[in-house]
């Protein structure tokens, strides 16, 4: 019998603790497949964030370290500078990367730090119970915007790819989504390119992945898949925001 699908070697067999319908599980698998396909598992070091993906060390079958909330790009910089021939990636949520860690993100990108950033944008703080994130949409109800995000009070959603496209050091910025098979295939291509860029010494690459958080969106998994297409994408259009040749 020919096996056509199996667990990527870069993913441990531990059961994920993510909620049903959560995008993190899909994105983990894509990252693991890419690491396998590029044959870099034994030289990869991952950085786990604060947020739902904090247990990344239990899921990825590579060396993984933790970082304080928002600091993965700085931790990655420290690793990459002393071990430039290793493959270093961070895996961060929107609260982690775009709120408390904005400075670390902008400066790692601006320096052209040769790392790969997987940025999971689910428009909300998942782990702490669904509070407003920098990426929360205008009008979106969260635990801390019970009447919906208000432009005057809370400011507009922060667009990370657009923002980072202004930095000279960013080599590759793409926004993808994991809400249907077609998008998932595109997301994997982007993630692969972000890792390949690092191997080719191209500098800072970030893939922003629009992802479902059904629990905190108070939706069923199916509704949240639809919400990405019908609402989320309107504020955060998919596409390549920078691709330095």
């Amino acid at each position, binding site marked *: 019998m020919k096996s056509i699908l199996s667990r990527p070697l870069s993913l441990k067999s531990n059961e994920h603790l993510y909620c049903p319908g959560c995008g993190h599980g899909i994105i983990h698998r894509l990252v693991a497949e890419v690491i396998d396909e590029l044959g870099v598992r034994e030289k990869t070091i991952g950085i786990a964030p604060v947020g739902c993906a904090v247990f990344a060390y239990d899921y990825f079958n590579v060396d993984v370290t933790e970082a304080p909330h928002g600091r993965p790009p700085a931790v*990655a*910089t420290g690793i990459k500078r002393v071990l430039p021939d290793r493959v270093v990636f961070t895996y961060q949520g929107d609260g982690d990367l775009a709120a408390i860690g904005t400075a*670390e993100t902008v400066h790692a990108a601006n320096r052209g730090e040769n790392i790969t950033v997987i940025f999971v944008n689910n428009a909300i703080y998942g782990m702490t119970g669904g509070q407003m994130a920098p990426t929360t949409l205008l009008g979106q109800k969260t635990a801390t915007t019970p009447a919906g995000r208000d432009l005057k009070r809370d400011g507009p959603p922060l667009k990370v790819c657009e923002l980072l496209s202004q930095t000279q050091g960013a080599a590759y910025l793409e926004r993808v989504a994991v809400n249907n098979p077609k998008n998932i295939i595109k997301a994997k291509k982007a993630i692969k390119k972000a890792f390949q860029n690092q191997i080719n010494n191209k500098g800072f690459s970030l893939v922003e992945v629009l992802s479902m958080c059904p629990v905190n969106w108070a939706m069923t998994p199916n509704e949240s898949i639809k919400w990405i297409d019908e609402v989320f994408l309107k504020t955060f259009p998919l596409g390549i925001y920078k691709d330095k040749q």
Partner: protein
Amino acid sequence: MNKILLKGNIALCEGAIAAGCQAYFGYPITPQNEVPAHMSKRMTELGRVFLQAESELAAINMVLGAAGTGALAMTSSSSPGISLKQEGISYLVGCELPALIVNVQRGGPGLGNIAGSQGDYFQSTKGGGHGDYRMLVLAPSTVQEMYDFANMSFGLAFKYRNPVLILADGVVGQMMEPVTIVTSDQKPVTSKDQQQIAWALTGAKGRPPRFHRSLLMDDGALEKLNWKLNEKYNSIKKNEVRYESENIEDADIILVAFGIAARVAKVAARKAREQGIKAGLIRPITLWPFPEKVIADNAKPGRKFLVVEMNLGQMVEDVRLAVNGKCPVEFLGRPGGGLVNEQEVLQEIKTIAK
């Protein structure tokens, strides 16, 4: 072995470099600016890592990353910057990673001033960051010690897998003195060496993957880690206490002071002796572990202690604990960048002696 005239902050850099420091991450703040400036030149010349971070938060987290790979990593700052570094320090301790952190203290609280101060004693020895943790804290009082302590702290940090803090102050950082440079044959660690370290994250080549984490949610797991850390702290307390003492055997008054204040206190104690008052000095070199035994052993009825610090009275609390009510403990201090002088200390000795 050769002797050269160096500024404290530069001696510190050279000591760390001689120990094989592989990576320095920092951010400018007076009065330690010579450190990033000197490191930017020397580390680059030597083909090692220097990076000016965008903030102290970033710098200490770069250290966290580098330290996780088994590299000898270092950062330096001054008081307000060290406050920002507390986040990463707590994580370094939680993940049991070695690193050298240097605080060339200035006056506080807040933005304070840029004069030498000892206002960060509590922050350094009692935590500062969150959680139940300790750091080895070394207090240099000469430029030679800036060199020597930087040189030996990587060894200590690696021995215990714990960050080591050098608590200097603006005066020691800025003054110039002759320094004996120990030409060491220590080579910087290579990435091959790093691969030999049993806990280092270097990529899981030919071995199961490793991870560093301080998040321990399982029932009792974090308590277990804390007890394990406690054992480590006990062994540091047993093995690493360092202090200097002078003329304490027959002393009626024992001065206790660290860092630059200890140099002033030493001269004052000697002058007091010339004037017929039996004074001596204990200078804690490790502020943690605190040399409590030598103080306890010398606390006898009829004696008096005088603690001299450049703050409102921080170490005096540890001295009082060690003395444990056996004799009076007096305090003389100047906060906010004030420097105690010999005359003041001598006057205080005379007042107490009466």
